[in-house]
Protein backbone atom coordinates (compact mmCIF):
# COMPACT_ATOMS: atom_id res chain seq x y z
CA UNK A 1 0.00 0.00 0.00
CA UNK A 2 1.66 3.19 -1.24
CA UNK A 3 0.30 6.43 0.23
CA UNK A 4 0.92 10.08 -0.71
CA UNK A 5 0.59 12.65 2.09
CA UNK A 6 0.05 16.23 0.89
CA UNK A 7 0.26 19.15 3.34
CA UNK A 8 2.18 22.43 3.27
CA UNK A 9 3.21 22.05 6.92
CA UNK A 10 5.97 19.53 7.46
CA UNK A 11 4.87 18.88 11.04
CA UNK A 12 1.39 17.86 9.92
CA UNK A 13 2.89 15.58 7.24
CA UNK A 14 5.03 14.03 9.93
CA UNK A 15 2.06 13.51 12.27
CA UNK A 16 0.00 11.85 9.54
CA UNK A 17 3.02 9.78 8.47
CA UNK A 18 3.63 8.55 12.04
CA UNK A 19 -0.03 7.70 12.56
CA UNK A 20 -0.10 5.80 9.28
CA UNK A 21 3.06 3.95 10.31
CA UNK A 22 1.37 2.94 13.57
CA UNK A 23 -1.52 1.61 11.52
CA UNK A 24 0.92 -0.52 9.55
CA UNK A 25 1.27 1.67 6.47
CA UNK A 26 4.99 2.23 6.10
CA UNK A 27 5.23 3.01 2.39
CA UNK A 28 4.47 6.73 2.35
CA UNK A 29 5.70 9.70 0.36
CA UNK A 30 5.18 13.41 0.91
CA UNK A 31 4.36 16.52 -1.14
CA UNK A 32 3.87 20.08 0.06
CA UNK A 33 1.08 21.14 -2.30
CA UNK A 34 -1.14 20.04 -5.17
CA UNK A 35 1.30 21.20 -7.87
CA UNK A 36 4.02 18.89 -6.52
CA UNK A 37 1.59 16.10 -5.71
CA UNK A 38 -0.16 15.80 -9.08
CA UNK A 39 2.87 14.71 -11.15
CA UNK A 40 3.88 12.34 -8.35
CA UNK A 41 0.43 10.74 -8.49
CA UNK A 42 0.50 10.58 -12.30
CA UNK A 43 3.95 8.99 -12.39
CA UNK A 44 3.76 6.79 -9.31
CA UNK A 45 1.60 3.81 -8.42
CA UNK A 46 -0.09 5.31 -5.37
CA UNK A 47 -2.98 3.45 -3.75
CA UNK A 48 -4.21 6.20 -1.48
CA UNK A 49 -4.06 10.01 -1.19
CA UNK A 50 -4.27 11.97 2.07
CA UNK A 51 -4.47 15.71 1.42
CA UNK A 52 -4.90 19.00 3.22
CA UNK A 53 -7.20 21.65 1.69
CA UNK A 54 -5.52 25.01 2.25
CA UNK A 55 -2.14 25.00 0.50
CA UNK A 56 -0.29 27.51 -1.68
CA UNK A 57 0.18 26.64 -5.35
CA UNK A 58 -2.65 24.16 -5.80
CA UNK A 59 -5.19 23.59 -3.03
CA UNK A 60 -6.39 20.17 -1.96
CA UNK A 61 -9.85 20.66 -3.46
CA UNK A 62 -8.30 21.53 -6.84
CA UNK A 63 -5.99 18.51 -6.54
CA UNK A 64 -9.04 16.33 -5.83
CA UNK A 65 -10.80 17.70 -8.94
CA UNK A 66 -7.68 17.07 -11.08
CA UNK A 67 -7.45 13.52 -9.73
CA UNK A 68 -11.10 12.82 -10.60
CA UNK A 69 -10.58 14.28 -14.11
CA UNK A 70 -7.56 12.06 -14.74
CA UNK A 71 -8.45 8.79 -16.46
CA UNK A 72 -5.83 6.78 -14.57
CA UNK A 73 -6.38 8.37 -11.15
CA UNK A 74 -10.18 8.61 -11.29
CA UNK A 75 -10.76 5.82 -8.74
CA UNK A 76 -7.91 6.67 -6.34
CA UNK A 77 -9.28 6.84 -2.76
CA UNK A 78 -8.83 10.35 -1.35
CA UNK A 79 -9.03 11.36 2.31
CA UNK A 80 -9.14 15.06 3.10
CA UNK A 81 -7.56 16.05 6.42
CA UNK A 82 -8.16 19.76 6.89
CA UNK A 83 -8.99 22.65 9.18
CA UNK A 84 -11.67 23.79 6.71
CA UNK A 85 -14.89 23.21 8.63
CA UNK A 86 -17.64 25.08 6.79
CA UNK A 87 -20.61 22.92 5.84
CA UNK A 88 -20.48 24.38 2.33
CA UNK A 89 -16.86 23.24 1.98
CA UNK A 90 -17.60 19.71 3.16
CA UNK A 91 -20.49 19.49 0.69
CA UNK A 92 -18.21 20.78 -2.10
CA UNK A 93 -15.57 18.17 -1.27
CA UNK A 94 -18.22 15.45 -1.25
CA UNK A 95 -19.52 16.60 -4.63
CA UNK A 96 -15.96 16.66 -5.99
CA UNK A 97 -15.68 12.99 -5.06
CA UNK A 98 -13.79 12.85 -1.76
CA UNK A 99 -13.88 9.46 -0.01
CA UNK A 100 -13.46 10.74 3.54
CA UNK A 101 -13.23 14.06 5.40
CA UNK A 102 -11.40 14.56 8.69
CA UNK A 103 -11.35 17.97 10.42
CA UNK A 104 -8.25 19.14 12.25
CA UNK A 105 -7.45 18.80 15.08
CA UNK A 106 -8.09 15.07 14.88
CA UNK A 107 -7.24 12.00 16.94
CA UNK A 108 -5.40 8.84 15.88
CA UNK A 109 -8.63 6.90 16.43
CA UNK A 110 -10.60 9.12 14.00
CA UNK A 111 -7.94 8.87 11.31
CA UNK A 112 -7.79 5.09 11.73
CA UNK A 113 -11.58 4.76 11.56
CA UNK A 114 -11.88 6.86 8.40
CA UNK A 115 -9.04 5.06 6.61
CA UNK A 116 -10.49 1.65 7.48
CA UNK A 117 -13.94 2.77 6.33
CA UNK A 118 -12.57 3.97 3.00
CA UNK A 119 -10.82 0.65 2.35
CA UNK A 120 -13.86 -1.35 3.42
CA UNK A 121 -15.90 0.55 0.86
CA UNK A 122 -13.26 0.39 -1.86
CA UNK A 123 -12.64 -3.32 -1.40
CA UNK A 124 -16.25 -4.21 -0.70
Amino acid at each position, binding site marked *: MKILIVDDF*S*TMRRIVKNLLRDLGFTNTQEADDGLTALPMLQNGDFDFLVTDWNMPGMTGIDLLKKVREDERLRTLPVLMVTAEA*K*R*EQIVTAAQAGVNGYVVKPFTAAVLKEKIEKIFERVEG
Partner: protein
Amino acid sequence: MSDINQSTIDQEISSEIRTLAENMLLELEQGHPENAVALVSDLNQVREETLYREIGKLTRALHEAIKNLKVSPSGVAPDVESGMNGTMDKLAYVLHMTDRSANRTMDLVDEGMPIVSDIHDRAEELSGRWKKLLQKDLKPDEFRTLTKDIDTYLEDNIEKTTQIKNEFSEILLAQDFQDLTGQVIHKVIDLVRDVEKRLVSLVAMAGHVDRITGIQHHHEEDIVDEDHKIRAEGPHTGTDKTDVVSNQDDVDDLLSSLGF
Protein backbone atom coordinates in the same frame (compact mmCIF):
# COMPACT_ATOMS: atom_id res chain seq x y z
CA MET B 1 -9.86 67.67 11.77
CA SER B 2 -12.38 68.82 14.31
CA ASP B 3 -16.11 68.98 13.64
CA ILE B 4 -16.32 72.60 14.87
CA ASN B 5 -13.70 73.75 12.36
CA GLN B 6 -15.39 71.77 9.65
CA SER B 7 -18.82 73.24 10.22
CA THR B 8 -17.36 76.79 10.27
CA ILE B 9 -15.70 76.13 6.90
CA ASP B 10 -18.93 74.62 5.52
CA GLN B 11 -20.86 77.70 6.68
CA GLU B 12 -18.35 80.04 5.05
CA ILE B 13 -18.58 78.16 1.76
CA SER B 14 -22.37 78.08 1.91
CA SER B 15 -22.68 81.79 2.54
CA GLU B 16 -20.20 82.55 -0.26
CA ILE B 17 -22.22 80.40 -2.69
CA ARG B 18 -25.47 81.99 -1.52
CA THR B 19 -24.11 85.52 -2.06
CA LEU B 20 -22.93 84.61 -5.57
CA ALA B 21 -26.29 83.02 -6.43
CA GLU B 22 -28.19 86.05 -5.17
CA ASN B 23 -25.93 88.37 -7.20
CA MET B 24 -26.50 86.19 -10.28
CA LEU B 25 -30.26 86.47 -9.86
CA LEU B 26 -29.96 90.21 -9.38
CA GLU B 27 -27.87 90.60 -12.55
CA LEU B 28 -30.42 88.58 -14.54
CA GLU B 29 -33.31 90.61 -13.18
CA GLN B 30 -31.48 93.82 -14.06
CA GLY B 31 -30.98 92.55 -17.64
CA HIS B 32 -27.25 91.78 -17.50
CA PRO B 33 -27.01 88.10 -18.44
CA GLU B 34 -23.30 88.52 -19.36
CA ASN B 35 -22.57 89.51 -15.76
CA ALA B 36 -24.56 86.52 -14.54
CA VAL B 37 -22.43 84.22 -16.75
CA ALA B 38 -19.29 85.81 -15.34
CA LEU B 39 -20.51 84.96 -11.87
CA VAL B 40 -20.75 81.27 -12.87
CA SER B 41 -16.98 81.24 -13.21
CA ASP B 42 -16.71 82.84 -9.74
CA LEU B 43 -18.91 80.02 -8.48
CA ASN B 44 -16.54 77.52 -10.07
CA GLN B 45 -13.63 79.25 -8.42
CA VAL B 46 -15.23 78.86 -5.00
CA ARG B 47 -15.71 75.18 -5.72
CA GLU B 48 -12.07 74.79 -6.82
CA GLU B 49 -10.74 76.68 -3.80
CA THR B 50 -12.81 74.49 -1.52
CA LEU B 51 -11.51 71.45 -3.31
CA TYR B 52 -7.89 72.56 -2.97
CA ARG B 53 -8.37 73.35 0.68
CA GLU B 54 -9.91 69.93 1.32
CA ILE B 55 -7.21 68.19 -0.68
CA GLY B 56 -4.59 70.04 1.35
CA LYS B 57 -6.24 68.96 4.55
CA LEU B 58 -6.65 65.41 3.35
CA THR B 59 -3.00 65.24 2.31
CA ARG B 60 -1.90 66.39 5.76
CA ALA B 61 -4.28 63.97 7.47
CA LEU B 62 -3.19 61.16 5.16
CA HIS B 63 0.43 61.87 5.94
CA GLU B 64 -0.32 61.78 9.66
CA ALA B 65 -2.31 58.57 9.26
CA ILE B 66 0.53 56.93 7.33
CA LYS B 67 3.00 58.08 9.96
CA ASN B 68 0.70 56.64 12.61
CA LEU B 69 0.42 53.38 10.70
CA LYS B 70 4.18 53.16 11.03
CA VAL B 71 4.55 52.05 7.41
CA SER B 72 7.66 53.31 5.64
CA PRO B 73 6.57 55.52 2.73
CA SER B 74 8.32 54.92 -0.59
CA GLY B 75 11.67 56.63 -0.83
CA VAL B 76 12.60 55.77 2.73
CA ALA B 77 15.49 53.36 3.02
CA PRO B 78 14.14 49.82 3.23
CA ASP B 79 16.22 49.05 6.28
CA VAL B 80 14.26 51.58 8.32
CA GLU B 81 12.34 49.60 10.88
CA SER B 82 8.61 50.01 10.37
CA GLY B 83 5.76 48.71 12.45
CA MET B 84 4.58 46.47 9.65
CA ASN B 85 8.00 45.00 8.98
CA GLY B 86 8.32 44.36 12.70
CA THR B 87 4.94 42.63 12.69
CA MET B 88 5.91 40.35 9.83
CA ASP B 89 9.09 39.47 11.70
CA LYS B 90 7.00 38.75 14.78
CA LEU B 91 4.69 36.42 12.87
CA ALA B 92 7.65 34.72 11.21
CA TYR B 93 9.03 34.19 14.72
CA VAL B 94 5.74 32.54 15.78
CA LEU B 95 5.92 30.24 12.76
CA HIS B 96 9.53 29.39 13.53
CA MET B 97 8.89 28.72 17.21
CA THR B 98 5.86 26.48 16.63
CA ASP B 99 7.69 24.57 13.90
CA ARG B 100 10.74 24.06 16.10
CA SER B 101 8.66 22.95 19.06
CA ALA B 102 6.56 20.51 17.04
CA ASN B 103 9.64 18.94 15.49
CA ARG B 104 11.50 18.76 18.82
CA THR B 105 8.50 17.03 20.43
CA MET B 106 8.19 14.57 17.56
CA ASP B 107 11.95 13.87 17.62
CA LEU B 108 11.73 13.02 21.32
CA VAL B 109 8.69 10.79 20.81
CA ASP B 110 10.48 9.06 17.94
CA GLU B 111 13.47 8.44 20.25
CA GLY B 112 11.27 7.17 23.08
CA MET B 113 9.03 4.84 21.05
CA PRO B 114 11.63 2.13 20.27
CA ILE B 115 12.83 2.18 23.92
CA VAL B 116 9.30 1.56 25.20
CA SER B 117 8.78 -1.14 22.54
CA ASP B 118 12.00 -2.86 23.63
CA ILE B 119 11.01 -2.79 27.34
CA HIS B 120 7.60 -4.19 26.42
CA ASP B 121 8.90 -6.96 24.16
CA ARG B 122 11.54 -8.13 26.65
CA ALA B 123 9.04 -8.10 29.54
CA GLU B 124 6.66 -10.17 27.46
CA GLU B 125 9.38 -12.70 26.66
CA LEU B 126 10.60 -12.91 30.30
CA SER B 127 7.02 -13.24 31.51
CA GLY B 128 6.64 -16.39 29.38
CA ARG B 129 9.71 -18.00 30.94
CA TRP B 130 8.71 -16.81 34.45
CA LYS B 131 5.35 -18.55 34.11
CA LYS B 132 7.16 -21.77 33.13
CA LEU B 133 9.25 -21.40 36.31
CA LEU B 134 6.11 -20.98 38.44
CA GLN B 135 4.71 -24.13 36.84
CA LYS B 136 8.03 -25.84 37.74
CA ASP B 137 8.55 -26.44 34.06
CA LEU B 138 12.04 -24.94 33.82
CA LYS B 139 15.31 -26.91 33.60
CA PRO B 140 18.17 -25.84 35.97
CA ASP B 141 20.30 -24.31 33.18
CA GLU B 142 17.21 -22.51 31.80
CA PHE B 143 16.62 -21.19 35.33
CA ARG B 144 20.20 -19.87 35.51
CA THR B 145 19.81 -18.09 32.16
CA LEU B 146 16.44 -16.66 33.30
CA THR B 147 17.87 -15.15 36.51
CA LYS B 148 20.73 -13.63 34.52
CA ASP B 149 18.31 -12.22 31.90
CA ILE B 150 16.00 -10.80 34.58
CA ASP B 151 18.97 -9.13 36.26
CA THR B 152 20.09 -7.56 32.96
CA TYR B 153 16.50 -6.53 32.20
CA LEU B 154 16.07 -4.78 35.55
CA GLU B 155 19.41 -2.99 35.18
CA ASP B 156 18.47 -1.89 31.64
CA ASN B 157 15.04 -0.86 32.82
CA ILE B 158 16.47 1.58 35.36
CA GLU B 159 18.62 3.16 32.66
CA LYS B 160 15.95 3.24 29.94
CA THR B 161 13.16 4.63 32.14
CA THR B 162 15.52 7.39 33.31
CA GLN B 163 16.09 8.22 29.63
CA ILE B 164 12.34 8.27 28.95
CA LYS B 165 11.77 10.44 32.02
CA ASN B 166 14.31 12.95 30.68
CA GLU B 167 12.62 12.90 27.28
CA PHE B 168 9.25 13.62 28.92
CA SER B 169 10.81 16.61 30.70
CA GLU B 170 12.20 17.85 27.41
CA ILE B 171 8.79 17.45 25.77
CA LEU B 172 7.35 19.62 28.53
CA LEU B 173 10.05 22.22 27.97
CA ALA B 174 9.38 22.19 24.23
CA GLN B 175 5.92 23.64 25.00
CA ASP B 176 7.46 26.95 26.09
CA PHE B 177 6.60 28.29 22.64
CA GLN B 178 3.00 28.76 23.83
CA ASP B 179 4.07 31.45 26.29
CA LEU B 180 6.55 33.15 23.94
CA THR B 181 4.40 33.10 20.82
CA GLY B 182 1.34 34.07 22.89
CA GLN B 183 3.05 37.31 23.95
CA VAL B 184 4.00 38.07 20.35
CA ILE B 185 0.49 37.33 19.07
CA HIS B 186 -0.98 39.67 21.70
CA LYS B 187 1.26 42.45 20.39
CA VAL B 188 0.19 41.76 16.80
CA ILE B 189 -3.49 41.80 17.83
CA ASP B 190 -2.98 45.21 19.46
CA LEU B 191 -1.27 46.55 16.35
CA VAL B 192 -3.98 45.26 14.00
CA ARG B 193 -6.67 46.79 16.21
CA ASP B 194 -4.83 50.11 16.15
CA VAL B 195 -4.33 50.04 12.38
CA GLU B 196 -8.01 49.20 11.89
CA LYS B 197 -9.04 52.21 13.99
CA ARG B 198 -6.81 54.53 11.97
CA LEU B 199 -7.99 53.09 8.66
CA VAL B 200 -11.60 53.69 9.67
CA SER B 201 -10.84 57.38 10.35
CA LEU B 202 -9.02 57.56 7.01
CA VAL B 203 -12.10 56.21 5.22
CA ALA B 204 -14.27 58.75 7.07
CA MET B 205 -11.92 61.52 5.95
CA ALA B 206 -12.02 60.41 2.31
CA GLY B 207 -15.81 60.21 2.54
CA HIS B 208 -15.91 63.85 3.63
CA VAL B 209 -13.85 64.96 0.62
CA ASP B 210 -16.21 63.03 -1.65
CA ARG B 211 -19.15 64.89 -0.11
CA ILE B 212 -17.57 68.35 -0.50
CA THR B 213 -16.46 67.79 -4.09
CA GLY B 214 -19.53 65.83 -5.14
CA ILE B 215 -17.47 62.91 -6.40
CA GLN B 216 -19.53 59.79 -6.92
CA HIS B 217 -18.05 56.36 -7.10
CA HIS B 218 -19.46 53.66 -9.28
CA HIS B 219 -19.42 50.54 -7.21
CA GLU B 220 -19.01 47.55 -9.40
CA GLU B 221 -21.19 44.61 -8.57
CA ASP B 222 -19.30 41.96 -6.70
CA ILE B 223 -18.36 39.44 -9.30
CA VAL B 224 -18.61 35.90 -8.03
CA ASP B 225 -15.97 33.75 -9.61
CA GLU B 226 -17.57 30.36 -9.91
CA ASP B 227 -14.25 28.52 -9.79
CA HIS B 228 -13.16 30.28 -6.63
CA LYS B 229 -16.47 30.52 -4.87
CA ILE B 230 -15.25 27.99 -2.33
CA ARG B 231 -12.20 29.41 -0.69
CA ALA B 232 -9.93 27.92 1.90
CA GLU B 233 -10.39 29.81 5.14
CA GLY B 234 -8.26 27.88 7.59
CA PRO B 235 -9.12 27.00 11.17
CA HIS B 236 -12.33 28.54 12.48
CA THR B 237 -11.76 30.19 15.82
CA GLY B 238 -15.32 31.29 16.61
CA THR B 239 -17.77 28.86 18.19
CA ASP B 240 -21.04 30.57 17.35
CA LYS B 241 -21.06 30.11 13.60
CA THR B 242 -23.90 28.01 12.28
CA ASP B 243 -22.33 27.36 8.89
CA VAL B 244 -19.29 25.75 10.49
CA VAL B 245 -19.17 22.23 11.91
CA SER B 246 -17.87 22.03 15.47
CA ASN B 247 -16.40 18.52 15.46
CA GLN B 248 -15.83 15.32 13.51
CA ASP B 249 -19.27 13.97 14.48
CA ASP B 250 -20.88 16.94 12.71
CA VAL B 251 -18.79 16.18 9.61
CA ASP B 252 -19.86 12.53 9.72
CA ASP B 253 -23.53 13.50 10.14
CA LEU B 254 -23.33 15.90 7.21
CA LEU B 255 -21.61 13.36 5.00
CA SER B 256 -24.06 10.61 5.90
CA SER B 257 -26.93 12.97 5.04
CA LEU B 258 -25.30 13.22 1.61
CA GLY B 259 -25.33 9.46 1.26
CA PHE B 260 -21.81 8.69 2.49
